Each structure stands twice: as C-alpha cells, then as structure tokens.
C-alpha cells in the first residue's frame, strides 16, 4: 500500500477559467517542464426529444471515487515520466457551457503529457463512481450514460 495522501479531486460547482489559469501559472517555476496537456469537459446543451439540457447535476460515491483515483494516479505516474498531474471534477449543479472536468498533465517532452492526459480521462469516465443527472429546462431529468 502506498503511503501517499489521497487527494481530493472534487470541487463544488463549475471549474472557473480563473482557477485553470492559476493552475497553469503555478507551473512557471517548474522549468523542467516542456509540455502541458489539458482536457476539459464542458456541459453540452444537448437536445433530447425536443428538450434541452440546461444543467448536469453530478453526485459521487466519494470515498470509493477518491480511492480509485488515487490508484489511477499511481499507475499513471508509474507508466509515464510526468512532472505533474492535476485532476478536478465538479459536483452539484453545472450549467450548460460550464466546465465540469479539468485534467492537467506536464512532462519534459510532449508525448507523455499528451498520452497520460488522454488515458486519465478515459479511465476516469470508465472507473470513477460519478453520476450525471441531465436536467432539462422544464426540470424533468434523465440520467447521463457514458459511451
């Protein structure tokens, strides 16, 4: 078992562009980094049977999600020569157009950062117990399913 502290990836509400900018700016002192890769998920105003998604409400099984994310983090650091890795996922009500996921990886050369970022997004969607409830303008809802 790893002794590393389990990080919290969850934030209440949307992830702001100011938060992302601050996260990017913090890396300017890390001069071994040559490439950063970022993925951001944004809530779409999907139209489903004539109704438009106005928001997604995210819930999670928090302890289980954080333990699994910790496992993914360790495996990703094992697999890729990364300098940094940051993951943030929203909980609660996220309106369409707002950002609900922010994955940020950095490495000396571009390839590990890019490949790790993609792999984290794939694994997060498949393996973390998080649920999105798509809320329509008329306050009805349906449960999102990842493809």
């Amino acid at each position, binding site marked *: 078992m790893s002794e590393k502290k389990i990080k919290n990836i969850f934030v209440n509400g949307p992830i702001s562009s100011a938060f992302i900018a601050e996260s990017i700016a913090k890396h300017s002192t890390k001069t071994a980094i040559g490439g950063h890769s970022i993925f951001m*998920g944004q809530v779409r105003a999907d139209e489903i049977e004539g109704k438009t998604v106005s928001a997604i409400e*995210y*819930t*999670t*099984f928090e*302890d*289980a*999600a954080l*333990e*699994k994310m910790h496992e993914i983090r360790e495996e990703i650091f094992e697999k890729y020569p990364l300098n940094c890795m940051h993951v943030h*996922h929203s909980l609660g009500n996220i309106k369409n157009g707002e950002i*609900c*996921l922010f994955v940020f990886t950095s490495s000396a050369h571009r390839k590990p950062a890019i490949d790790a970022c993609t792999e984290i*997004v794939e694994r*997060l*969607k*498949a*393996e*973390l*117990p*998080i*649920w*999105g*409830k798509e809320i329509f303008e008329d306050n009805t809802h349906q*449960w*999102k*399913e*990842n493809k």
Partner: protein
Amino acid sequence: MEIEIISFGKIAEFLQNQELQLEGIVDTEQLREHLENKFPRLSSMKYKLAVNKKLVQVNTLINNNDSVAIMPPFSGG
C-alpha cells in the same frame, strides 16, 4: 446478519439507503438475486456492487456489518 445498503444515481431514486437483514445469503451473487426480488426495478437495470467501497469484480463473500453499494453505470466527466 445485517448489512448496510447504499445506492447512487438513478437507483437512489427508488432504493433508499437502509439496513438489511439477510438470512442464508453468503456472497454477492446471492445478494444480487435477493435484491432483485426485493426491488424488482433493479432486475431490468445494469448495476455494479461494491463491498466496503471496493468494486466487486468476482463473486465475493459478505460479512456481518458490511456496507454494500449499488451503483448504476458511471457517467462522470
């Protein structure tokens, strides 16, 4: 024995968190059957179980006071 049931997502809409008394049920395969009898809507749904926060990948023994999570397909991101 007694186990704790916690549910998430669309399953939480009809299956409340609760304590469940079990008789003659020793593993997660038997628990699935029991749950689907008790909560018929479950039988037409895809879901995974986690015992004490660990995802069940193969049939797993259940012990008194275990916490069992019932989880519909994940849709984070």
